[in-house]
């Protein structure tokens, strides 16, 4: 009779075997020639010379200039709209209203509930009510000012908890509550009953702006064959395409979407290009001419998506020794005016369900109950921003862990060591973490590199005047690779030519994270050629296979695997030919550095290009196609139990700060971040992701918020929306650990978003440690820290 553990293990082995059969892509872990190396990025030379072309750098000859007329009310009916005067202005070619949309008047990354042009009502300040295309920007701007709209303002709702009430003004016909999702594991009442300490806290975070340096822009143009080309900076060409086609009332194959080099994305350019892409394409279809729609910086802030604000209520129980017994969470997730990227894509896609699943943190907790509510409000809408709902909940659970530690007289490290995930842990959704779990290793590595013990001893006042105090803080985190939808998959094509040069077709975009280097690295590694032999074709929906969006830290892993499979397919053909040429069995052949050779007798070799050339002359197929989907996601809609994401990246950050206890100013003086990334395909690029992510997390902690009052954003420009400068960010040291991901190329898993997640709570915890004041409603700007110190009754006693 098998006991429960053996049963579980056996079930796990069977499941693993089945998954491996479908999803395992075996790759060597050693002796890599191109992957795993810190090569210079393929586009760097153009960047440092100022030659890389971004959207605004394209020639504008022949383009009409488009502008959007925006609603000045957060919630109003449109009674009438008069475009006659605008249409009569010389130089104006088109003025479109809702009636002019031939197909579906709606777009959205998940639910197409945002009107391309509002017809009956507006739902946030900045909602589009008319489109203008004119010969120059100045004329377009003037035309906008001639359009007369009569609005009937409606009562608006700005707080998600107000939006839930019975009598709240309805923003959409379907009601204001987009969803109520539940996570149920065990019995929280029993869990609390067995706790020695129970803490209840509420944490709150505001809207955040991506503040990518490059403002949004798109260009649409009719093609000779009747299709429409839309190009611009964007993270999700296929999502853009599948939105534009129904808006224009044409089949998908009549719309071509292509990425242009991007000046930053961070998730914002996952859906802002849908917005301006649909609008520009509509104008192109209507006028028959190329259209350029560029947003000014302030318009980017007003119009495009934001990071979801949240109110998070936590009640956590723990035993005296720090073992967590129960977690009860209520999450009020503000979606804003439109569905954006919040709602569920079954089984576990969408930011809201992700927040729910991540809310208890990377800790073993036997009893968990979470109620997560997603609400519409008359505010700008929530999209994706680096972490996709995880940063917010980490701010809550990591601060809670510190508050619990304090209540129990434990150190922040002790309580985490007690509960942190390890291989074999079961998550709050009942997922067994059966591979690639390096969380505890990151904690120890970080503590050592940061010298946690040593720095703990130097906490306290740093000046004789006793105005500045030093403190340290830790933040742990986990983040998925993949987006948890039923259709999460990637395709790649690899063409080898008779001279050994390679074309790589992938729909994964480059926004500075390095995909245009890392993906060719993987391709070159698998084929056995040099990095410079591989040319990645700009992501183009006419040429690349469906690849999904460049989000969710999925690119290296999912597309990496697809590329390996594609390269392997064409390499197989070339190796067969080389085998004939060398009279050596295929299974003894290696391909490396442009040579195919006998593993046992390396001097017996043939140049890769010669084998390729012979394939060409013999009519052999030099085309490889790869398709990879991760092991299937699952999540029960009632209980939130299942395996939402197939692997996680883990991280621990430690920060040292000095707080001026008289003014509340915070200086971050030391910082170490440790990551388990499975495998670093380009370590230097990976460090860059870490450093940039930490800076972004620092901004969230100390200075960033979209200041919105009655639906109006008060800080629309970069003068008042503050992101960290060189003087705000310390030197950042990265520690990279590799606990191999079975299902990742060379063991890799995702890294793009992880770095900015634990940074915020690590810094907040350090601030609390330094000055005794805890800020639970971000950002912890000097004023908030000042009041928190007052509320705590002053800084800690020495």
């Amino acid at each position, binding site marked *: 009779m098998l006991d429960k553990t053996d049963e579980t293990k056996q079930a796990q082995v069977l499941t693993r075997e089945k998954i491996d059969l479908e999803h395992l892509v075996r790759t060597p872990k050693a002796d890599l020639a191109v992957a795993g190396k810190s090569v210079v990025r393929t586009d760097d030379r153009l960047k440092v010379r100022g030659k890389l072309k971004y959207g605004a750098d394209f020639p504008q000859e022949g383009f009409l200039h488009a502008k959007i007329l925006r609603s000045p009310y957060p919630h109003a009916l449109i009674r009438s709209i008069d475009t006659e005067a605008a249409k009569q202005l010389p130089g104006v070619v088109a003025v479109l209203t809702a009636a002019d949309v031939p197909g579906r008047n709606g777009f959205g990354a998940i639910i197409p509930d945002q009107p391309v042009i509002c017809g009956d009502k507006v739902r946030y300040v900045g909602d589009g009510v008319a489109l203008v295309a004119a010969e120059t920007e100045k004329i377009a701007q003037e035309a906008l000012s001639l359009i007369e709209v009569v609005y009937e303002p409606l009562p608006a709702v700005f707080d998600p908890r107000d939006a839930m009430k019975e009598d709240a003004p309805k923003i959409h016909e379907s009601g204001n509550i987009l969803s109520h999702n539940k996570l149920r594991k065990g019995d929280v009442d029993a869990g609390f009953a067995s706790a020695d300490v129970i803490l209840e806290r509420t944490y709150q975070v505001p809207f955040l702006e991506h503040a990518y340096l490059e403002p949004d822009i798109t260009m649409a143009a009719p093609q000779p064959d009747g299709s429409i080309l839309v190009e611009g900076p964007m993270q999700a060409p296929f999502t853009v395409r599948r939105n534009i086609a129904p808006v224009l009332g044409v089949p998908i194959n009549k719309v071509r979407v292509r990425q242009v080099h991007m000046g930053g994305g961070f998730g914002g350019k996952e859906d802002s290009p849908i917005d301006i892409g649909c609008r520009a394409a509509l104008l192109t279809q209507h006028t028959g001419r190329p259209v350029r729609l560029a947003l000014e910086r302030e318009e980017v802030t007003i119009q495009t998506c934001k990071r979801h604000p949240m109110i998070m209520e936590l009640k956590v129980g723990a035993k005296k020794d720090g073992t967590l017994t129960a977690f009860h969470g209520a999450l009020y997730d503000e979606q804003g005016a439109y569905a954006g990227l919040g709602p569920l894509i079954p089984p576990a896609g969408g930011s809201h369900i992700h927040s729910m699943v991540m809310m208890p943190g990377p800790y073993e907790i036997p009893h968990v109950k979470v109620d997560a509510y997603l609400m519409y409000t008359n505010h700008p809408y929530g999209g994706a921003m680096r972490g996709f709902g995880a940063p917010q909940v980490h701010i809550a659970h990591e601060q809670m862990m510190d508050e619990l530690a304090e209540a129990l007289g434990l150190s922040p490290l002790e309580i985490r060591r007690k509960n942190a995930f390890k291989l074999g842990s079961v998550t709050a959704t009942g997922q067994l973490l059966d591979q690639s779990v390096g969380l505890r290793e990151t904690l120890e590595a970080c503590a050592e590199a940061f010298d946690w013990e040593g720095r703990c001893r130097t906490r306290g006042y740093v000046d004789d005047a006793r105005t500045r105090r030093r403190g340290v803080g830790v933040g742990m985190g986990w983040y998925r690779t993949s987006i948890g939808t039923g259709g999460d998959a990637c395709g790649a094509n690899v063409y080898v030519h008779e001279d050994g040069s390679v074309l790589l077709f992938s729909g994964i975009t480059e926004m500075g994270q390095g995909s245009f280097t890392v993906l060719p690295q993987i391709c070159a590694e698998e084929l056995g050629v040099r990095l410079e032999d591989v040319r990645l074709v700009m992501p183009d929906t006419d040429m690349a296979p469906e690849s999904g969006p460049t989000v969710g830290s999925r690119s290296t892993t999912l597309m990496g695997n697809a590329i390996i499979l594609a390269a392997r397919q064409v390499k197989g053909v070339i190796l067969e030919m080389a085998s004939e040429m060398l009279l050596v069995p295929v299974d003894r052949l290696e391909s490396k550095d442009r040579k195919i050779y006998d593993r046992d007798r390396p001097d017996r070799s043939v140049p890769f290009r010669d084998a390729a050339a012979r394939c060409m002359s013999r009519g052999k197929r030099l085309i490889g196609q790869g398709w990879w989907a991760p092991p299937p996601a699952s999540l029960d809609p009632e209980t939130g139990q299942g395996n939402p994401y197939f692997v996680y990246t883990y991280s621990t950050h430690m920060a040292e700060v000095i707080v001026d206890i*008289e003014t509340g100013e915070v200086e971050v003086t030391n910082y170490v971040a440790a990551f388990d990334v499975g495998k670093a395909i380009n370590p230097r690029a990976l460090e860059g992701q870490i450093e940039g992510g930490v800076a972004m997390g620092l901004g969230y902690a100390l200075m960033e918020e979209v200041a919105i009052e009655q639906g109006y954003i008060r800080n629309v420009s970069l003068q008042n929306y503050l992101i960290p400068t060189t003087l705000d960010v310390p030197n950042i040291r990265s520690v990279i650990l590799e606990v191999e991901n079975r299902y990742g190329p060379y063991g890799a898993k995702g890294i793009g978003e992880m770095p900015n997640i634990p940074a915020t709570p690590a810094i907040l915890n350090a601030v609390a440690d330094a000055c005794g004041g805890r800020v639970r409603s971000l950002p912890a700007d000097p004023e908030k820290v000042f009041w928190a110190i007052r509320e705590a009754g002053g800084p800690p006693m020495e």
Partner: protein
Amino acid sequence: MAYSFRDLHWSKDIPVREYLLPKTLSEALDMLAEYDGGARVVAGGTDVVPQLRKRQLQVNALVDISRLPNMNHIEQDGEFIRMGGLVTHAQTAASPLIRKYAGLLASGASWVGSPQIRNIATVSGNLISGQPAADTSIPLLALDASVTLASKDGERSVPLSRFFMGIGKTALDPSREILVEIRFKALASNQGGAYLRLGKRRALVLPMLVAAMVVTVDPERRLFTDAAIAFGPVAPTPYRAINAEERLRGRAVTEEVLAEAGDAALQECTPRDSCLRGSCDYRCEMARVFVRRGVKQALRESGFDWL
């Protein structure tokens, strides 16, 4: 409605028809007169150009005075320092004369905007912006500086205490006057200055509070003989904390006296609650902190390490 059309729909252009480059002061004044209010002087342009883009300013022509001669000087003239109307923040921050005799002004100038802005924006432009927390207005107010305004009618001198009229408004009539010189008394050996700033990040940020002070002491009797304390933004214009100053004048240099002055500053400052720049309560608290820190810093810098 809280947003105007312009708040929602932004242009890249500035609606100006002419860009004029006079070679002499007289030529510049003639141009202003010709446009009769329809022209605006630019030196660095870092305030005027964004205002034009936002349509907060509507003019037909810009009169670029950056080529005018005799306006680039920083010189000592007896007990005074004279700065020409075209001196940039970068020049001010780097000037050995200013650093020695008006360190608080060098500090203030080094905090304006960013290095790129400081390279081209002028101190006189900073004054003319009429912003209550302009980083050189505050130290110059503490220095009791005065400005020389030139017009076709001649020159007039206006002390800064009468120069700032309201947010964005000064005594200078932009339709006919040009600020040609700034003048203040160099700090004497029994004087010390300080400049302090509080912001939500460490560069490129409008301050929550900025303060500058000049203290004059009697080294023998260890008394404050005089004090000038300027704050911004705690009122519609750069503000002299006269009550705080009064608590110091003639009093002994002690922590208790400083504390009194700090309390007075807290009481007399009246900033609005601002979601971007801080609440009234907080900024008043910071005024108190700044008085104490600033006066101590001023004493230390002048060699009077008594506190």
